[in-house]
């Protein structure tokens, strides 16, 4: 496992106390804390380099443009993108998926066509497809999950028989921790001619991802979930698809020639980056990737799996706790309920011990219905979490039970 105590020292916020207790931050699937290296990159950018990009003839603007494009190359290398111009910077996963639905989807989907999503998709990889299908008179098909929280491959196969135009799924589920067999799902979808959109919000921070090996068509991710700044993220796509797509937003920088009533558009990726981009966000994201790579994505994945395994074991010992999702291989996300103690109440009680967990539907309401719960409590781990923190979680949970006078049935 990683030396979490040493890594923790890199994160200023984690040095704080909460309610007089050492802060135990276990809401990493929602957003992560930032290492000093990322804060330094942001500061350094504003102190030495800040200017608008792609337009200036002076030194500062050139350096800002270089920093921005170097960040694009950094993201491309990190995910083994097809080319740097296949990386479009966005505010995050949600915007990246909306870009695909709005530009690719709107141009290519016809009435009666089908879009396939899964019952474990985050609202951000579901609602854009609902809206698109409503607009186009297309059919949205939701693939069911198995008892233990995996994509039901036989239902997936049935959905593919209807030859969908677009298939969207999460690489890693933010509610269950399931690591989906992305490569296999993509091959099957391609075999019926579908274009595949992978929601990489939870895989990018925690696994070694190679989009070319996956062979997906679009891949979306968020910087703030991988130690980077808020407001940063990317859509990674096959360049030929981007080239063939109409633009997304209109504005500066995405154009070639602008006439009074029409325009021609710039090359990719600029065609999809209208207006002043968030250069700070891109530079900060690149610094976050540097930090992650120094530690090693394989090491991070291993560390988190060990924490998840320990958490599942430890929580399962508590009478009345139910843990959701697959038992075997999974990412560092552990969703659970505890008797009739509502997850929201659990979160409030744990907070008093300085432990931050999430309670709710985790933006996966269709999944919650299938689990037959209104909400779960969720602990999600990252490289700075430790086995001691798993223990603190369990101890505090027992206290919550006592406070509620919870008596296992």
């Amino acid at each position, binding site marked *: 496992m990683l030396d979490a105590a040493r890594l923790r020292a890199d994160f200023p916020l984690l040095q704080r106390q909460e*309610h007089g207790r050492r802060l135990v931050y276990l809401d990493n699937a929602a957003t992560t804390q930032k290492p000093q290296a990322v804060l330094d990159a942001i500061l350094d950018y504003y102190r030495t380099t800040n200017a608008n990009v792609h337009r200036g003839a002076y030194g500062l603007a050139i350096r800002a443009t270089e920093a921005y494009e170097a960040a694009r190359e950094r993201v491309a290398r990190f995910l083994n993108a097809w080319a740097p111009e296949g990386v479009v910077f966005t505010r995050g996963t949600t915007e990246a998926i909306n870009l695909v639905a709005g530009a690719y989807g709107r141009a290519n989907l016809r009435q009666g066509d089908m879009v396939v999503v899964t019952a474990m998709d985050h609202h951000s990889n579901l609602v854009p497809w609902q809206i698109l299908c409503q607009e186009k008179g297309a059919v949205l098909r939701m693939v069911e999950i198995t008892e233990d929280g995996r994509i039901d491959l036989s239902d997936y196969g049935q959905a593919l028989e209807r030859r969908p135009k677009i298939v969207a799924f999460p690489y890693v589920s933010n509610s269950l921790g399931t690591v989906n067999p992305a490569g296999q799902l993509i091959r099957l979808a391609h075999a019926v001619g579908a274009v595949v959109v992978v929601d990489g919000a939870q895989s990018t921070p925690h696994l070694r991802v190679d989009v070319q090996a996956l062979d997906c068509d679009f891949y979306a991710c968020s910087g703030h979930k991988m130690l980077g700044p808020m407001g940063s993220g990317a859509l990674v796509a096959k360049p030929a698809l981007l080239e063939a797509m109409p633009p997304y937003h209109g504005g500066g920088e995405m154009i070639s020639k602008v006439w009074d009533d029409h325009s021609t558009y710039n090359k990719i990726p600029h065609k999809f980056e209208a207006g002043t981009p968030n250069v700070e966000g891109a530079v900060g994201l690149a610094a976050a990737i540097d930090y992650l790579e120094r530690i090693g994505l394989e090491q991070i994945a291993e560390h988190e799996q060990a924490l998840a395994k320990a958490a599942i074991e430890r929580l399962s010992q508590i009478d009345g706790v139910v843990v959701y999702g697959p038992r075997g291989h999974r990412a560092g996300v552990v969703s659970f309920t505890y008797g009739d103690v*509502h997850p*929201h*109440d659990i979160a409030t009680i744990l907070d*008093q011990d300085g432990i931050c967990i999430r*309670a709710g539907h985790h933006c996966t309401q269709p999944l919650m219905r299938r689990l037959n719960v209104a*909400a779960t409590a969720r602990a999600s781990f990252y490289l700075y979490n430790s086995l001691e923190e798993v223990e603190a979680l369990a101890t505090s949970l027992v206290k919550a039970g006592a406070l509620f*006078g919870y008596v296992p049935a």
Partner: protein
Amino acid sequence: MDTSPPEPRLSALYQELILDHYRRPRNKGMLEHPTHAVSLNNPLCGDEIDLQLLVQDAVIRDVRFVGRGCSISQASASMMTQLLKEKSVPQALVLAGRISAMMQGDAAAATDKSLGELRALAGVSKFPVRIKCALLPWNALSDALKSSA
């Protein structure tokens, strides 16, 4: 930075009475012929309530609810239904205002006898994020009464 010990505030929040209402909600169910009905949910945590009222001559004759959510929202709903019976509409709205004041930490409201058992929710004011749980049924009430006003 808050350094007070957490436990006293937690046990003030999760009083016996609240847990009792949470586990054995009063007036749970649906009215057959409600004059007012409203569904409200809190999109952020997913808590929800369906509230039905039977109002005659500007008096709340009966009230029922069906809800899903945390102990605070469900206990608040249960206690609210008890308190509302036979109250006039203006009285009900005044009570909603008092509850809201109590959540803002208004000490007078927290000891206002007219609130009955609901004073047990005074501790919620120390947990800002939970205030909207306590107020969910009261917001549903205001919506319901507004919808016919």
